[in-house]
């Protein structure tokens, strides 16, 4: 709580907004990954993707605990009792899971972004975030190795796996711009050294993923689309059905205490 006291009310409000956005990305992506449970190409990858999903959910839990320190909100309430209008995840993570190439490529693009964002967040002046970033970045680096390996093998595999991976890239690439769009008033927290500068993270992200996708994997980057116009309050038609399923048990038994 001492760290929280050094924040101005506007900083606190912005940090709550940012932490929620970070958590929402992880929750929704984890759910999409979880949809593969029992359906992945082989048992080992089924386990691996469930591991990744659990890690992402764990990161969401850490962000929401940081939020709880700021405004006392309950992470479970936020995850299971907010409606579609309340979720602030990027549209990239809510798209249906697609085929294995789509899921692996999306996870790769997100892992690279998250690993680099967390790496930068380790230098935050806000100690609770520094701590969380140091912990989560380790897992993210491992995810990144796994998904980078899959993207490479699919892209360089058979004609079919290459085609599917290229199709996935064509569809996903335009959605990645939103990852680097700040939330309202985020620049103030960047100036205070509390949050990483997203432009810097984006530069490092492009330097990492573009050569991997093009030179190593032989994929073609789609023409850059216009920057993500709509903010995190705008969603595709896919989020509402996802939430309906994800929240169904919690809402059916709202007074449950033991899970």
């Amino acid at each position, binding site marked *: 709580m001492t760290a929280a006291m050094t924040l101005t009310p506007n900083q606190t409000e912005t940090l709550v907004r940012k932490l929620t956005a970070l958590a929402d990305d992880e929750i929704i992506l984890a759910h999409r990954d979880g949809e593969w449970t029992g359906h992945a190409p*082989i*048992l*080992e*990858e089924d*386990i*691996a993707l469930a*591991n990744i999903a659990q*890690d992402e959910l764990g990161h969401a839990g850490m962000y929401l605990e940081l939020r709880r320190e700021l405004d006392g909100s309950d992470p479970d309430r936020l995850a299971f009792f907010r409606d579609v209008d309340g979720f602030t995840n990027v549209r990239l993570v809510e798209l249906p899971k697609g085929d294995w190439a789509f899921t692996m490529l999306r996870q790769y693009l997100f892992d690279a972004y998250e690993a680099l964002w967390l790496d930068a967040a380790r230098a935050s002046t806000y100690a609770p975030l520094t701590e969380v970033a140091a*912990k989560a970045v*380790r*897992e993210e*680096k*491992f995810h990144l*190795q*796994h998904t980078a*390996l899959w993207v490479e*093998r699919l892209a360089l595999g058979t004609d079919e796996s290459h085609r599917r991976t290229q199709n996935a890239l064509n569809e996903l690439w335009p959605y990645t711009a939103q990852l680097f769009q700040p939330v309202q008033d985020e620049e103030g927290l960047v100036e205070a050294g509390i949050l990483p500068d997203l432009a810097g993270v984006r530069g490092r992200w492009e330097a990492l993923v573009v050569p991997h996708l093009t030179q190593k994997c032989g994929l073609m980057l789609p023409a850059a689309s216009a920057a993500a116009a709509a903010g995190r309050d705008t969603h595709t038609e896919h989020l509402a059905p996802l939430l309906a399923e994800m929240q169904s048990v919690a809402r059916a038994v709202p007074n449950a205490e*033991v*899970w």
Partner: protein
Amino acid sequence: MTAPAHPDTQWPRWEVFKQDAPNRPYQAVGSVHAGDPDHALLTARNVFVRRPAAVSLWTVREADILTATPEEVEANPAVLDTPGEAGTYHLGLKRTHKRSMTFVDLVGTLEASGPGDALRQAREQHPDALTWLVFPESAVVRTDDDPGTVESWFAPAKDKTYKQQQYYGVIGRHVGELKREGRMPQRVNEEPHVGDHKVYDHPHDAVAKKVQP
């Protein structure tokens, strides 16, 4: 080494050897299917190192491993002539039926003219083993031991609590509650009860005779 009755239609199988702490032996923990060495290591980490502590992993393609029990060697002595590359071989032993999680400990290396010769030496050095396992050093795929790998592959597991199934007492009464009431076995292998009545007597539960002074 012989063709199985039901051939595995998946990717090649890799045996996974895990080291729990520096200077501890590598232990066989199970196997994974994977398309290539890097994939095998990543998959092994996901399957076998999410919770338990580890500091290093090896994977070895099943096709590069020769194993035999004493019974198998007796029935088929030609296994001791199995040809292959000469060089350094790792030797693993299964010594007990008691352990549930690991089956083979790697106990060292030997120089051999081939896998059959390695097996023959293993048999001479460790005649009491239940199973011998040998594979050439050249077949080992290892995790890097640089700090970055250790931190992202193995460190996170140390912060995670390993919860047994019984931790999740969702349906019915929590097992801890039953334990406190003395309605659960107090130790491994205790004989089952129905209510307060023991179903049958086990020699281990007999009251030990006191030694007369």
